[in-house]
């Protein structure tokens, strides 16, 4: 396995994908605040093209593409690797970042004659920083490097939460920062113990050396605890709803759709890529239970919210819960675990697109009506048909009704839980869908009823179209062919060495 750290054809693309947003950050504030917006908008198509090219290379090679930075291979150097899931996530991130950038253009633009503001420069820089951090998280091959990327993600996400400086956003940002800092320091402690026990931090090398020793277990437990705090899984979800609900809509979409997925992605890397050879039944069950609790609690809390954006934020808590069912449902190397794996990643993608679209719509709604109180939505659907169509279609995916990516994910999860004999997991899946139907109904029922609302301003068609396009992607994921799921398997280590 000496070729693990060697640069493969196309490996340089990974460096380009990281450098593009980083160069954007530097470029954004060298020529001054006005050009930041143009830099961010112009870099998104290139980023998307790069992500697609990387996916093409991975698909053609049938194995991960690797780049050893500076020609220095691990263990001393750092390697970047793009496998199936990394390539898919790169594309998803590029699409959602691009959508957020074009959506936010109206709010954070500084045309000639308008005074520059801190918030707009901050927004464009932090948006690109989130993109850079996520790219590194998806292709990073070194656990310490992933730590720095996680911190980068935090430092980019927190200022976005409090960008308009209202007291409640400042408080939410502070709470988010403290949770995130605790999460990353706990992760870092795990990294230290991993290095002490195994002498490397490269994911592929760790996978070869990992054994079920107490030190490895402690390290993995600490890292998982930290990542759970950052992913806002149920008992440590407290920071998420205020942070996501109070940020501007474009930022909320990125935070809910992508940023929490970053730390979840590293959790996947840890258990399925670093420690595939360990007997992880107990841990998988614990994570599954936490996820189930999140599904139920998040959905119930979503049902009780008075504000639309808070409802959507609590729905994120619930939908993140589903993601953690991947640990019991994709463990081992049986036939059903492949279905469980596909299901988990489908949920990841479908939620990212559907949730981003819903936050965009909620933002448009709040701007049009001047508030986002659910009780005062009566008759709004007639005034804003396209916005409500987006919310409804996105809601379908959250509920898991066909045809949608959400349906695909939840259906495959049910299949995996029954095929593996762990039918208990099907209960939270079904209950979560019912509750999701409840909270989506809570939004749509008053909006579709008779009533009259006064619009403060009419949302731009372009913005509605961006939101709708994202939900169409979420629906299209429901028609994903088998080759897509085969692609997701590229580079996934199979636990052949199970006793």
């Amino acid at each position: 396995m000496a070729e693990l750290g060697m640069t493969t054809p196309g490996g340089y693309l990974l460096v380009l994908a990281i450098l593009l947003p980083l160069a954007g950050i530097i470029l954004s504030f060298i020529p001054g605040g006005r050009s930041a917006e143009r830099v961010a908008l112009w870099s998104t198509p290139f980023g998307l093209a790069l992500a697609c090219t990387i996916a093409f290379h991975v698909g053609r090679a049938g194995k991960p593409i690797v780049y050893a930075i500076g020609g220095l291979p691990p263990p001393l150097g750092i390697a970047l690797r793009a496998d199936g899931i990394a390539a898919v996530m790169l594309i998803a991130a590029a699409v959602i970042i691009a959508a957020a950038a074009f959506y936010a253009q109206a709010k954070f633009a500084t045309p000639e004659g308008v005074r520059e503001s801190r918030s707009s420069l901050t927004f464009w820089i932090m948006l690109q920083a989130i993109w850079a951090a996520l790219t590194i998280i998806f292709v990073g091959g070194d656990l310490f490097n992933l730590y720095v990327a996680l911190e980068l993600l935090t430092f980019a996400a927190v200022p976005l939460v409090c960008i308009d400086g209202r007291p409640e956003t400042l408080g939410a940002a502070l709470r988010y920062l403290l949770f995130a800092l605790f999460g990353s320091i706990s992760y870092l402690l795990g990294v230290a113990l991993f290095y002490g026990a195994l002498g490397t931090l490269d994911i592929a090398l760790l996978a070869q050396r990992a054994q079920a020793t107490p030190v490895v277990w402690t390290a993995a437990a600490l890292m998982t605890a930290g990542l759970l705090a950052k992913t806002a899984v149920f008992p440590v979800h407290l920071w998420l709803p205020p942070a996501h609900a109070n940020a501007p809509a474009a930022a909320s979409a990125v935070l809910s759709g992508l940023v929490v997925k970053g730390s979840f992605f590293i959790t996947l890397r840890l258990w399925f890529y670093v420690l595939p050879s360990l007997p992880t039944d107990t841990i998988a069950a614990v994570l599954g239970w936490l996820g189930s609790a999140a599904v139920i609690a998040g959905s119930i809390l979503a049902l009780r919210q008075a504000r639309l954006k808070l409802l959507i934020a609590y729905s994120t808590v619930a939908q993140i819960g589903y993601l953690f069912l991947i640990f019991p449902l994709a463990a081992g190397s049986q036939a059903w675990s492949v279905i469980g794996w596909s299901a988990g990643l489908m949920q990841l993608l479908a939620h990212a697109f559907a949730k981003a679209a819903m936050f965009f719509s909620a933002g448009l709604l709040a701007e049009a009506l001047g508030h986002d109180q659910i009780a005062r939505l009566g008759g709004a659907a007639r005034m804003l048909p396209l916005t409500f169509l987006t919310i409804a279609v996105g809601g379908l995916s959250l509920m898991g009704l066909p045809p949608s990516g959400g349906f695909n994910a939840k259906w495959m999860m049910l299949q995996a839980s029954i095929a593996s004999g762990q039918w208990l997991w099907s209960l939270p899946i079904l209950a979560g869908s019912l509750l999701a139907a409840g909270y989506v109904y809570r939004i749509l029922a008053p909006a579709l009823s008779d009533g009259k609302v006064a619009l403060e301003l009419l949302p731009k068609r372009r913005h509605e179209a961006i939101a709708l396009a994202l939900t169409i992607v979420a629906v299209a994921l429901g028609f994903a062919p088998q080759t897509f799921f085969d692609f997701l398997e590229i580079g996934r280590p199979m636990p052949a060495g199970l006793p």
Partner: protein
Amino acid sequence: MNLLSYLDIGLALLVVGVAIWTIAARELFAAVVGYVAYGLLLAFVWIRLYAPDVALTEAAVGGGVTGVLLITAGKRLGALKNAAPDVQPGLTFKLLTGALAALVASAIGAAILMLPDPPPSLAPEAAAAADSAGAGLGNPITAVLMSYRSFDTMLEKIVLILAVIGVWSVGTDKGMGRHTGAVPPTQALCSDGLSRSVASTHRRCHRNSYVLDRCQRARRRVSGRRLACGDVDGHHDGAAGGAAPHRRAVASPGFGRRTSSIPRRRPRGGGCSGRLLCLSAEPRQANHSVHRSVHAAVHHGGVADARRRSAERETGSMTPSVLAGLVGAALVGLGVYGLILHPHPLRKLLAFNLIGSGVFLVFGIVARRGAAAGFRFDPVPQAMVITGIVVAFAASALAVALILRLATETGRVTLDPEAWTLPKGEDAK
């Protein structure tokens, strides 16, 4: 057990004692002062782990600048009325948190005691790499930071840039561009003063590493010659004892010359642009004395090195590195306790910094255990610690900026969500 081991144990107890004070102190100000003292003590622990680079960074950034930041923030908050939340946690909650913290600390302590023997290390590879023509950097840590983990180092810079922008963004638009009229002091501190301080700290770190690099390059030259005599991690103790002192005597004039060429601290009087910058001269002075004692350790430590190292082996579990590891575990436990229990965000931030330094100590003992091939430590984890300390400082700066702005806006400092939301009906948008 010789004198040194007693000193080590004393130092460990002192560090943990001051850390307990930092968590337990009633007054915010007392806790912050305790934290500054703690940062300086920690520098000595790092010297005992043969990590002068980290000791300098910890004394300057971990204890010094972060301390100044927290003291300034504490003073500002003290001026505000009704700043401190008056809710005190109940006894049951305290006991539960204490149990959790003890559990975490003992799990980490146990993991440290169970680290594999012989320890895995990248020191031989790093040694070969630092000697190779390609790297061209005498200091192994600099070599790791600048070439092998250059990607991390680059990202660390981006993190700092983001922290500066983040701190700046928390300010209000009134301070944007040219100053038009008087800016309230809190606001000035929130935005531009703090951003400047983040940036200047970064510059100072660079200067430190430059000075260290020059001195260590000289030291490497000395230890490289000793390496030629066969003093490789205590395998050939006899040869080292016989030949090394002579070689060192030959090499030390050059060493002395090098030292004298280190740029002296220029007196700074009126050149300071901000209050924070002025205060920061103090840690630098501390650096110098730390620096000198590092030199002393290098010179005198070398003679007794072989003997001491075998003594370490004999005393078994209570080597300085194991002791430091247990201190690290205790610090993490204390930090977890404080983080959960203290309602005041600034106290939470202090507790977070305690956890951080505990985690860095764990890295430190991992590095110390990895000593091999003429290195007293594995440079890879040490390089990571330096990155980590800088990132943790950036995090503290951002948090302080948020806390100050929150205090300015609401007149209160609390994480209680009830306090942030406006009265019902007004939170429409």
